[in-house]
């Protein structure tokens, strides 16, 4: 008796009326995979970089995420401190990415910071974003030793730092950026556009289903 795998491949090839690909036909599909050509990229995001940033900001607002603009990264810990104070939060779980750890966090005097994966009950998390995609106001976050995926989903509020220089136009540009900076795919790539939501009850949209109820992006100019 043949295995399921053999059976499935035999069926496919019978339907296609051919054996396994060989020669030029094989080279053609291998070539396409290697070159990974782009399909049509919508004109919307084909803009000078400063206009892409503007588009990103508009699309983020449309996706119901919040955005705070900062002139440079040294302001970021102060902005986080202010946000936590205003929201009466005293405990922060944070990623430990190079972008975050190089900043001076001593300003968060009254806050307990833990650098670890998220747990049930954590109220607010802090991560940094690999890219921002202007087309739809989407963040791209990568899993890794210093950036646990659970931080993006378990806490009620998700704070994200994004540098303006990491904003690209379309998804395809983000994949190029990923391919050029990483030797392999991380376990998880999260493309996040706004906070969690559901319309499963009577098709009425409610914010904050299972993921964060608020997504706050700190956009850093330098």
């Amino acid at each position, binding site marked *: 008796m043949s295995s399921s795998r053999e059976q499935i491949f035999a069926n496919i090839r019978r339907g296609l009326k051919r054996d396994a690909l060989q020669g030029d036909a*094989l080279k053609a599909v291998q070539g396409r995979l290697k070159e990974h050509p782009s*399909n049509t990229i919508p004109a919307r995001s084909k803009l000078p970089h400063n206009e892409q940033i503007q588009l990103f900001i508009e699309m983020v607002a*449309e996706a119901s995420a919040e955005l705070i603009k900062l002139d440079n990264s040294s302001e970021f810990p102060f902005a986080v401190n202010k946000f936590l104070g205003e929201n009466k939060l005293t405990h922060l779980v944070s990623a430990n990415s190079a972008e975050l750890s190089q900043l001076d966090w001593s300003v968060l005097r009254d806050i307990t910071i833990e650098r670890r994966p998220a747990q*049930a009950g954590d109220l607010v998390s802090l991560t940094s974003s690999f890219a921002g995609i202007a087309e739809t106001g989407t963040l791209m976050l990568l899993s890794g*030793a210093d950036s*646990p*995926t659970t931080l993006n989903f378990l806490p009620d509020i998700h704070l994200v730092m994004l540098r303006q220089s990491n904003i690209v136009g379309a998804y395809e540009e983000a994949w190029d950026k990923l391919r050029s900076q990483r030797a392999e795919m991380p376990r*998880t790539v999260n493309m996040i556009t706004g906070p*969690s939501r559901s319309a499963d009850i009577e098709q009425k949209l409610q914010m904050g289903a299972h993921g964060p109820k608020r997504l706050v992006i700190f956009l850093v100019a330098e």
Partner: protein
Amino acid sequence: MQINSPDFKNSSKKALDNPGLQKALGNLRNGFPVKRANAVQRMPEFELLRNEGRDIKNHVIANLDFYLEEFETNVTKNGGNVHWACDAEDARKAILDICQKANAKTVTKGKSMVSEEINLNEYLESNGVQPVETDLGEYILQLREDHPSHIIAPAIHLNLDDVSSIFSEKHGTPHTSDPAALMQEAREVLRDKFVAADVGITGANFCVAETGSTIIVTNEGNGDLTQTLPRVHIVITTIDKVVPTLEDMSLFLRLLARSATGQEFTVYNTLSTGPRRENDADGPEEYHVVLLDNGRSEMIGTQFQDMLRCIRCSACMNHCPVYGAVGGHAYGWVYPGPMGSVLTPKLIGIEKSGHLPNASTFCGKCESVCPVHIPLPKMMRHWREKEFEKHLSPKGFRFGIGTWAYFAKRPALYRWLARASAFSLKLMGGKSRRIRSLPLKNGWTAWRDLPAPEGGTFMDQWKKNQSTETSPSHPDNKCRS
């Protein structure tokens, strides 16, 4: 899921007489189609993207063996496992086996129609593994021991009261008619389940051959918690979900969000590639992809091959007048609406599902909104032909078609009869020009009057118009130079 498709006619009648369902379906008709139209309008390239989507899917089907092997190689290279399953039984066994090796007591589940197709929940339960649905809609249905009636909005047949009642009963909380409070309740109850689960099972919207990744698309974030927190992540999906590259996947994500919910982009698009890396702080230690065929490979090279392009967006059912009138449960199995009427006969047999391809007015709306141009009405016609060839259609129907064919083959007789019928119907209509009841036609006249014909037939009018066509056009219509 139990097959109730043979009972389509009765189920439809009940659905039409069910005021709660009719109210719920009203939310659908006024929701998704409007949102889709707005999203499409904002994307001038949408038609171009649809054509490319169709072409890439055709390219994948023509090279499906290659892309599946490539996907398998890359999953394995990243430390994951691929399990091939010819049928539902193979897939269930593979999943149970992984769960048992992991000593799993509870598994959390992201939304997956393929898991419905293979009856996974019942099977796991009967083997001592407790599945917990985590998508809000699916969770509501699991509490009610109910099944999805829509492929992306599973609880669309329910109203707020239904949710409120079942939550109050099962959670022991007071009744509330605030949807936000109900969602918060589900969030809190499920939080513990996410953390306690030994295994997380999700579906996949696409499998990327280039990287060996699977992707899930959700708005709630439940799928992400399902696949990140437990020690083992199982993906249950089908062989038609493979796409070549991240670029191709991006094209389909653009099409999917707009065609499904009318969003610019779904909130969470999450790629999983293998298990957690050596130094990763979290994520599953094992990553399994169960690739199910269940009859799909046999569609290649047949008149149903184009159905393999489907990306499960639900636009066809959202725009279907039949689905909109009777809802998804009437179709009697996992996949409702036009895509279900084509796919179900292949998956469970035309003998049990012959009513489905007949449940269409052939208005063509489904094909016109399909993001990958699947000729759904044409394929429903193919099923009707097969049903007729196999002598499965009822006697009365066959007699009617036979009688019609007799006259259609004798045009002079047909025209004479048509003229005589039109004339007598005109007489019957009288001054009101409406017919209140007609022998053998009470299927129509029980619900509404039949407008009486004017007296002439189509052919008569055609001849008359042909003879006046040469009359000079109105002077205003002339181009001004």
